């Protein structure tokens, strides 16, 4: 029986795309003073990858480029979504980033701590009472 490797290639591309969308977007958004630059780069890269997928005559390459390209295009939106998470305190602000410093100054909800870095305890937790900022 011949194995069909396209599923494994698609799985690897998907996992890489999701991983970058989580880790890469978080790190780049936290470090970048502007949002438009990483957003524009993601749009250009995503479109280039999709054009590559269209023009590639090789099925595996076309599939991988198509998946990664589409997740990179979605990452372009994620930079703004991540900025809003920081504003609402759902992601930690980087005080060394002027854009985040402004969020910290203008929005009470913004904070430098990551509230998700804790273990589940099985009951609701009042983070304000715990003194977390």
């Amino acid at each position, binding site marked *: *029986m011949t*194995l*069909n*490797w*396209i*599923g*494994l*290639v*698609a*799985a*690897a591309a*998907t*996992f890489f*795309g*999701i*991983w970058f969308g*989580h*880790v890469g977007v978080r790190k780049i958004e936290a470090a970048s003073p502007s949002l438009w630059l990483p957003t524009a780069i993601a749009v250009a890269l995503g479109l280039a990858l*999709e054009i*590559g*997928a*269209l*023009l*590639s*005559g090789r*099925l595996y*390459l*076309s*599939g*991988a*480029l*198509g*998946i*990664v*390209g*589409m*997740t990179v295009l*979605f990452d372009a939106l994620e930079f703004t979504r991540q900025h809003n998470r920081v504003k609402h305190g*759902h992601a930690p602000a980087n005080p060394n980033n002027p854009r985040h410093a402004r969020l910290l100054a203008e929005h009470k909800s913004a904070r430098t701590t990551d*509230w*998700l870095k*804790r*273990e*589940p*305890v*099985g*009951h*609701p*937790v*009042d*983070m304000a009472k715990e003194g977390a900022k």
Partner: protein
Amino acid sequence: MTLFGLGLGIATLFIIGLGFVWVIRGEYYLGYLWWPYVMGLGILLIAASLFVPSVWASALIGVAGASIVWGSTELKEQAVRGEIGWYPFNPNPKPQPPFAEQIKKWPAPHL
């Protein structure tokens, strides 16, 4: 010119989008301790995709498998999100998975 990659990319976005939904619902009703079983299901799907002759079916099963593996790594953070009030918290007892006490000792992976 082939539309395979573009089509697969669009399908992947939908499958990843579904991932957000089932992670939220799955954690709400079952709890995060099921993560090893969810991860196992995702790995099994990826392995099964090797034996599917259809290119489209194999690719979509692989994408679904990878999305499920990712979802398994999100369950613990989703539990925390519920506990700190960012998502509804389910106060009802959740079904314990087999070997729950052992699973509690393992660090739940996260991306």
